[in-house]
């Protein structure tokens, strides 16, 4: 697929790198020469230096033959302009990143549709929504919903109190004999394991489970982690994510928001109704103690600085806060932070990239999700009549080792795969696959 990415700042750079490694033809446009050089030195893309709102540059990048234009510069107006221009110049689809909640509201979508923009991404809002989800299901480290929650993938950290520690997959299956969930991946340190019957669970593993909606409580019980009800949350950083998260949470629970910039705090206090806005430096332990951090059920750190977020979350963990969420936009840090004991991560780039990957057409794949910190991709395929996957039941399929068929959606209802499952055409199948197994998986759906 031919894709133009306008703006290779944080989100664009990650997208360019990821998509070019997936064999898409990527052209990037950026006004900043340094950005252009960086991306062309580190990934296989064609780069254009200049403004993405220039018709000449868009034409040079062959916008008329482009399947998708993704405008993700830091300036909203440029993104909207780029998307409109690109669409008028012949691009098949155009996506723009925006910075205002107003634009992405349902009421205003029509305006942008009529201008030719197919989708607006507001990564900060998506990040805020994810924070809310993680707080509502505090036992989970990650939550990915598939097809509006017909299936969910939940990440859980195994601690020493867990009844499943040192049990093999097979033993667990015998003991709990359930069809409402299935373990699909284990992240152990830097290694991602697609488990088979003989794999055991160890302390500090991060386990990814696919489940139907009714199964969530059951998993929590089995795994020995009841959802801790969260009443008090402290948010560090009053940027777009912190602000939005506070707004979404403040009607249900008590929220304290700490922001160092005085002018910003005034603005925040005006925007937020019930949240207690505190001016101060979040790295100041005395301030945190004064604001009773030990009474908090959750601590969310979403300042612009990843290092600050990691350190403050570790500190909160140390002080006994049961749930910590850190925003870490530096992708290279992701595996590291999970080994040092942080609960959950928010990564703006991955969130934006996951949204955009919906528009990327891979053979038969209807959606693909990347979960921070694990190597496996979650791919959703639609079963074509006569494809290899329909020929045998799952246990006889000889599915590649690095991949697992987690669940499927038939007639709008989510199901978990068992050994005897036989797929029918038009089933939507959810597969966990390590990168090197993807091509083999693809054969089954052709």
């Amino acid at each position, binding site marked *: 697929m*031919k894709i133009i990415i306008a703006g290779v700042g944080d989100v664009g750079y990650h997208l360019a790198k990821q998509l*070019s*490694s997936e064999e898409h033809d*990527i052209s990037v446009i950026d006004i900043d020469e340094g950005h252009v050089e960086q991306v062309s030195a580190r990934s*296989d893309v*064609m780069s254009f230096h200049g403004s993405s709102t220039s018709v000449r540059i868009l034409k040079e990048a062959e916008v008329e033959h482009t399947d998708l234009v993704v405008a993700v510069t830091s300036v909203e107006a440029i993104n909207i302009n780029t998307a409109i221009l690109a669409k008028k110049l012949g691009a098949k689809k155009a996506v723009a990143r925006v910075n205002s909640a107003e634009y992405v509201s349902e009421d205003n979508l029509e305006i942008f549709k009529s201008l030719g923009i197919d989708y607006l991404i507001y990564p900060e809002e998506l990040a805020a929504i994810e924070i809310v989800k993680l707080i509502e299901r505090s036992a989970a480290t990650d939550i990915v919903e598939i097809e509006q929650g017909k299936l969910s993938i939940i990440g859980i950290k195994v601690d020493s109190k867990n009844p499943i520690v040192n049990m093999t997959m097979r033993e667990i299956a015998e003991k709990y004999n359930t069809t409402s969930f299935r373990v699909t991946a284990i992240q152990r340190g830097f290694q991602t394991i697609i488990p088979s019957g003989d794999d055991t669970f160890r302390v500090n593993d991060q386990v990814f489970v696919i489940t139907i909606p009714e199964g969530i409580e059951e998993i929590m019980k089995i795994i020995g982690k009841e959802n801790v009800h969260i009443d008090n949350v402290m948010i560090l950083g009053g940027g777009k994510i912190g602000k939005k998260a506070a707004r979404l949470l403040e009607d249900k629970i008590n929220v304290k928001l700490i922001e160092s910039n005085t002018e910003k705090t005034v603005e925040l206090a005006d925007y937020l109704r019930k949240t207690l806005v505190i001016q101060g430096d979040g790295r100041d332990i005395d301030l945190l103690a004064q604001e009773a951090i030990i009474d908090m059920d959750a601590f969310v750190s979403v300042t612009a600085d990843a290092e600050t977020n990691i350190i403050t979350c570790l500190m909160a963990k140390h002080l006994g806060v049961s749930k910590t969420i850190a925003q870490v936009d530096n992708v290279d840090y992701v595996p590291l932070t999970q080994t040092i004991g942080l609960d959950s991560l928010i990564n703006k780039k991955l969130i934006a990239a996951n949204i955009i990957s919906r528009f990327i057409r891979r053979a038969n794949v209807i959606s693909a999700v990347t979960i921070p910190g694990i190597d496996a991709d979650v791919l959703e395929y639609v079963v074509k009549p006569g494809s290899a996957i329909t020929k045998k039941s799952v246990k006889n399929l000889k599915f590649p080792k690095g991949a697992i068929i987690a669940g499927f959606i038939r007639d709008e209802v989510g199901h978990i795969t068992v050994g005897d499952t036989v797929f029918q055409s038009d089933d939507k199948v959810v597969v966990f696959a390590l990168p090197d197994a993807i091509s083999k998986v693809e054969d089954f759906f052709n």
Partner: protein
Amino acid sequence: MINFRVIFNIVGFLLILDGIAMMLGIPFSVYFNDDDIFALLISGAGTAIFGFLLYYFTKGSDKEIRKREGYIVVSLGWIAMTIFGAIPFIVHGSIPNITDAFFETMSGFTTTGASILNDIESMPHGLLFWRSLTQWLGGMGFIVLSLAILPILGIGGMQLFVAEVPGPTKDKIHPRVRETAKRLWGIYVLFTFVEAVLLYVGGMEFFDSICHSLTTMATGGFSTKQSSIAHFNSPFIQYVIVIFMFMAGMNFSLHYYWLHRKIKPLSQNEEFRFYSLLIFGFAFLITLGLVVNSSTDLETTFRDSLFQVVSMITTTGFVTADYEMWGVFYHVIFFLLLFIGGSAGSTGGGIKVVRHLLLIKNSALELRRLIHPRAVIPVRFNKTTVHQEIVFNIMAFLLFYIAIFVFGTLVLSFIGLDFLTSMGAVATSLGNVGPAIATVGPVDNFAHIPAFAKWFLSFLMLMGRLELFTVLIIFSPSFWKK
């Protein structure tokens, strides 16, 4: 740490390619009933098997190719290809001497075209074909070829691409390196095929038409005839070769654009305009000078002048007339032409037209800068500003080029070659041209050069083909520091 595993993996792949390519000449040997079938078969199979073993035992290596690995792969790949490529000549015995065989093969791969053969026509056809094929493989570059067919990681591929493709800046014509390499080779194959057909139509033997089109498109200059293109006394053949030498000396991305009906980049490309101006300017100048005191007709004089000028500027080295017979002034002209070179992104060698153009521009602007010391006066090329770093890079290139030329001349004169021969041999090797002046002129060859000088000149050819930096960088201490 330098990842030698992946380096040997790629070199192994290149040797498989080398071995297979050697055996491609066997059908000709069979057809002409020559005695080189065994030599080609054993060398080709041996090289391919050795390459396969190297490839096989380094398989599954970490595919990451960083800058350092990129430079080593390319330099080492070229040397390995040459060493193995020389084997058929030695096994068959037509070039029994290792020095001569290595020189001839390096001259082939680097598309120099300087030969040590005293009697080319007595060579068996399979070996002649292999000799032409070395030039063709080296012309567009076998690293670029392997990028097109070997699934190397794209990002690492770019490092290899940068280290092999000539020119101060490397343009992609497709977002992915692999697709770029495929398109470049596609154009190359297409043009070679068209030229071969035209030469055949023009009256060449089938075998000769193929060999000559291989060496024209590569701007190589190996001929299957002792007297080069002068052997074919046909204006049609000579004009066809002129046109294809001219095209081979152009940036191949321009060919890609005009083949896709985008004429604009061609007419607006400053390098292309300067390249054409140089060629036709020199051709007219020489025609004018010769026609005044010559008995031959205007067309022949023009054709000879144009042919020689195109052949030298594109660094091909084919010959239809002995310019050394034309007078001292023309010695100087043709000596200077050795320093021009083809366009960036072409198969030609030498300094490259774009480097001259940018330096001329920069120097001219320097005069304006002296008058307006505070003015911001950037060098512009194809309507965009050229970065200062690129100008500095070109200056460094030119300085290295001249320094190596001077040093090389000193070395050759030290071992006893005369002044003009030393200068000519070094300039023509470094520029990958082929013929030079004095005792290595257009109708002479390199057989009489001492053995040490042959090794030395082979090394200069490699440096020239890989544009100095790729080879020089390996000798710099900072390259090996962790």
